């Protein structure tokens, strides 16, 4: 069973990497926001506004966390509701592996490793994930 799940994880990781590369290429408009100074505040008003929060890129507790708006949803399926990924419109990565995040109706955020505990911004969700992981590697989420 562990052998099977590792193979599956590796296969999915390869697919994801390819998808992420293609994704960056078709969304050049978001690149301009990609390199905020680490530690800069998240976009003000993100709690109230339906607009996507700004990108971020920093090293937190020794791990690289990145976040950026995505052009639409559906860049990969979770294979469950039949409609694919719910299209958060924003992607977060920990050391290059996508962390599944979700925005709540009130503008707060959660991630799959901290799913019952909303925080104000996607950067806060990424940091909470690093805290929770304690150095463990994240698995690409379609393999979860």
């Amino acid at each position, binding site marked *: 069973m562990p052998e099977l799940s590792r193979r599956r994880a590796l296969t999915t990781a390869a697919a994801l990497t390819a998808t992420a590369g293609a994704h960056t290429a078709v969304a050049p408009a978001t690149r301009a926001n990609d390199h905020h100074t680490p530690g800069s505040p998240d976009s003000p008003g993100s709690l109230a506004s339906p607009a996507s929060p700004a990108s971020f890129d920093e090293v937190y507790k020794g791990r690289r966390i990145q976040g950026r708006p995505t052009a639409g949803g559906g860049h990969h399926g979770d294979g*469950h509701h039949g409609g694919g990924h719910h299209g958060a419109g924003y992607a977060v990565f920990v050391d290059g592996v996508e962390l599944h995040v979700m925005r709540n109706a*009130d503008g707060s955020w959660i991630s*799959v490793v901290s799913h019952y505990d909303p925080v104000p911004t996607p950067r806060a969700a990424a940091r909470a994930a690093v805290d929770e992981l304690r150095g463990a*590697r*994240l*698995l690409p989420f379609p393999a979860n």
Partner: protein
Amino acid sequence: MTVRKNQASLTAEEKRRFVAAVLELKRSGRYDAFVTTHNAFILGDTDNGERTGHRSPSFLPWHRRFLLEFERALQSVDASVALPYWDWSVDRSTRASLWAPDFLGGTGRSLDGRVMDGAFAASTGNWPISVRVDGRTYLRRALGASVRELPTRAEVDSVLAMATYDMAPWNSASEGFRNHLEGWRGVNLHNRVHVWVGGQMATGVSPNDPVFWLHHAYIDKLWAQWQRRHPGSAYVPAAGTPDVVDLNETMKPWNDTTPADLLDHTAHYAFDTD
């Protein structure tokens, strides 16, 4: 007839049989299918899209059916087993018998959160975490670390007093009983308990910790208590709501049962104290 008992009142033999049945489902691979299903809904249920298992009116009937499926699986191993419930407003300390080595085992060690005792400790070899979101394959907990206090009885009562089942926009922003019980608004009952336990219970793969079932069995009991307290209040919405399971619409993944079919738990089980 299945009788769901308070975990605190189980006999040693009842605990032993429950644990053995859970371990057998794990060994056979049936347990992990439940974890996979739950995570798929956690990832798929969104406030502005289709929502079924969580952050929606069907949170309660969906979990009632999910627990029934799990309980039936347990009973296929040992017909005497029923799901116990954990009243976390009473058994609210890490010293509760729930966390003893003869039942679920205790909190994780500080180094890495690893649970070190009980039948579900990784060292037994009987509880590999296979459906997971990170590289760690051992059961973890951090009881009371991320949030200090479990909900109190007074907080539970304040939510049971809410007469309206649920309200538009039928999601995590709603007022009403369902969302306050789920915990996205207000004093926060169900969500806070997941956070209090920590480890896998705080994640989308929360059924990896067997306490998931005891937590949800108590949430389910609170729904039954609410129904008795508000006999004139009904499940809503009744019809015609996009992305939301109406009273007579079938629920995924079963597609053969509606909230209306699940309102009366007594068709399936009773509680020790009603």
